[in-house]
């Protein structure tokens, strides 16, 4: 049991909280046809983090968050500029910006000596969930022991705060968010600041992406923005229920993914664990696949029944 506490509790919690923090804004993104914003954000975060590292010389949470948020802002401004000035459709404008910024990040990373610190492209993609272990745990008593709790990986409290803030924001701004997502015109006429709400949603997604990225890498970020909310969308027609389902799916993906990655290979007689981040994304995909095949509201309203 100590082994579980030391090796698995913190990664599972971090995985679950990251998944929820991304899935919550993801619900609104997919309804607003902005699902690929998560993809774009998780790419542009890289140059932000590298620049923050070059500016401060250390790998610390705060400068990295600031750098990543700055990069996300630059990306949004660039995409808007290209859309307006060049009259280019949004998808293509996004493709231009995020690939160029990611390429810049990779080049910067290759050009600087980051061998002394834990900063490389693969880490950025895959995260290192497995390394977030809790050395100070010695039995269940440690859960109430302040000294042992202080030894928790710092990523855990950070992602917990971010997840809580995002949940709180979703709760507080529920009505304007829902209104402006479903009927922007009506929302505007009843005085909801729709543009501000839209920007705030992207900003909240960026914060979730950055915090989760720090702990689990960009694959989970993209998968969690899209797969649990998409599966939830097929389960129900009510937004409240959809958000609830998406949290359930995100949690299940994170736990099952971690367990399969850590213990699954052992069941097949292999020695080493496989990537937890990749496995969590794969499990969320499996859930979505099942939802696509069997969920009650999977079809478009008006679509042909039966052999449709």
């Amino acid at each position, binding site marked *: 049991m100590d082994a579980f506490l030391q090796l698995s509790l913190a990664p599972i919690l971090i995985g679950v909280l990251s998944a929820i923090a991304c899935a919550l804004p993801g619900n609104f993104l*997919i309804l607003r046809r902005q699902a690929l914003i998560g993809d774009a954000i998780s790419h542009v975060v890289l140059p932000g983090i590298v620049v923050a590292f070059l500016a401060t010389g250390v790998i610390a949470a705060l400068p990295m968050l600031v750098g990543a948020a700055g990069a996300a802002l630059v990306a949004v401004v660039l995409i808007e500029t290209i859309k307006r*000035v060049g009259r280019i459709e949004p998808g293509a404008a996004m493709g231009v910006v995020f*690939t160029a910024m990611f390429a810049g990040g990779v080049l910067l990373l290759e050009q600087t000596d980051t061998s002394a610190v834990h900063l490389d492209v693969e880490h950025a*993609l*895959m995260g290192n969930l497995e390394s977030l272990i809790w050395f100070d745990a010695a039995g269940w008593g440690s859960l109430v022991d302040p000294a042992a709790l202080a030894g928790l990986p710092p990523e855990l409290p950070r992602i917990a705060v971010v997840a809580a803030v995002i949940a709180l924001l979703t709760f507080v701004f529920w009505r304007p968010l829902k209104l402006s997502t479903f009927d922007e015109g009506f929302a505007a006429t009843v005085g909801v600041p729709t543009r501000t709400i839209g920007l705030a949603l992207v900003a909240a997604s960026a914060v979730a992406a950055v915090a989760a990225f720090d702990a689990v890498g960009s694959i989970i970020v993209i*998968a969690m923005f899209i797969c649990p909310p998409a599966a939830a969308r*097929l389960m129900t027609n009510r937004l409240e229920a959809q958000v609830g389902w998406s949290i359930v799916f995100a949690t299940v993906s994170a736990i099952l993914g971690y367990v399969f990655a850590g213990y699954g290979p052992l069941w097949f007689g292999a020695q080493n664990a496989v990537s937890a981040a990749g*496995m969590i994304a794969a499990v*969320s995909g499996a859930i979505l696949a099942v939802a696509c095949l069997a969920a009650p509201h999977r079809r478009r309203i008006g679509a042909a029944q039966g052999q449709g």
Partner: protein
Amino acid sequence: MPDAILSALLFQAGYNAALVAIGSALLGIAAGAGGTFLFLRKRALISDAVAHATLPGIGLAFIAMVALGGDGRNLVGLLAGSAVSAAVGLLLVDWIVRHTRLAEDVAIGAILSVFFGLGIVLLTVIQTMSSGRQAGLEGFLLGSTAGMLRQDALVIAVGGALALAVLVLLRRPMTLVAFDPGYAAARGVRVQAVDLAMMGLVLAVTVIGLKVVGLILIVAMLIIPPVTARLWSERTDTVVAVAGVLGGLAGYLGAAISASAPNLPTGPIIVLVSFSLFCFSLLMAPSRGVLAAAVRHRRFQRRVHRRQGLLALARNEPILDPLTLKVLRRDGLIRPDKVATDAGRARAAKALRDERRWEVARRMHQDEGASGRYDGLTSIETVLTPDEIAAIDAEIGAPRLAGQGAN
């Protein structure tokens, strides 16, 4: 370093480097031109799903080749595997959009992240295999041309040339389908087949580009050159050609720069060269560029100020606005002491008369298109015929000289 770049540009940095540069250029041309059709169908980001979906195929192909006792690093085998899994990903995106209520962007994002996640799982499995330690499959993420085998470079060059040939053969039907699928179907073009061919081309470019640019950035070669070319032209043929040239240029320059010094990974350099070309175009393009827009705005501003200034002259009103004064003075319509010159008085009288003509015209043609054209800048001669204007003049009376009681 300039010398190193120059020698790489002139194919003097070794046979392999030259092959890679030629291969990248061919690939860039095929990707730029092929991506244009995707962009025109507004499906540019589907290539991102295709690119990420290649990863599990690479992993499975490696495992399969090792299990069969072969060399897991055989490029042709790996690329074949990646093509299969990318095709599966593409079909799944299509299936999700067709059979569920989820939108295409959701399907793209889901396939992209899940396939990539699966691929990463397979990569970690391969790392634990005895033959997998030196597999170097991570090179497919961001591309690596350093230490590329000669036969690999040949595969890329031949593949790029083939993709280009298919593109040239299919450009007519693809243009038709990109703009008007309904019309294309009526003309007897098999829209589904052409769509399939277009996706096949995208898939081929992606797979061939994996080794050079890497699967995360290959989408840039399919998107940035078409977007750049679109800034320069409104004609499909031109956009396709320009996108091909820009893509080829980016591929060639990028590969050469990357070969000239260490720590310059090929993929990101190609993308950044492409992005630089894009930024240049966004500034300089003739009608959609930033500079062109600024010039247009300035010209418009001057026309408004000139007209307001002329009307003020005609009505003997004082002109205070500095820009108006500057415009009038530069055109020789007023003297430095703000008094109208002869030319200025003539133009002012004409401006005032045109204003009154418009007034009458709008009264006469209240519900016609002509009166809707009144914006103060359109000259009345371009809207009405001379005899219409003569009729209006008859109503207004004979012209009087400005400054002598025009009203």
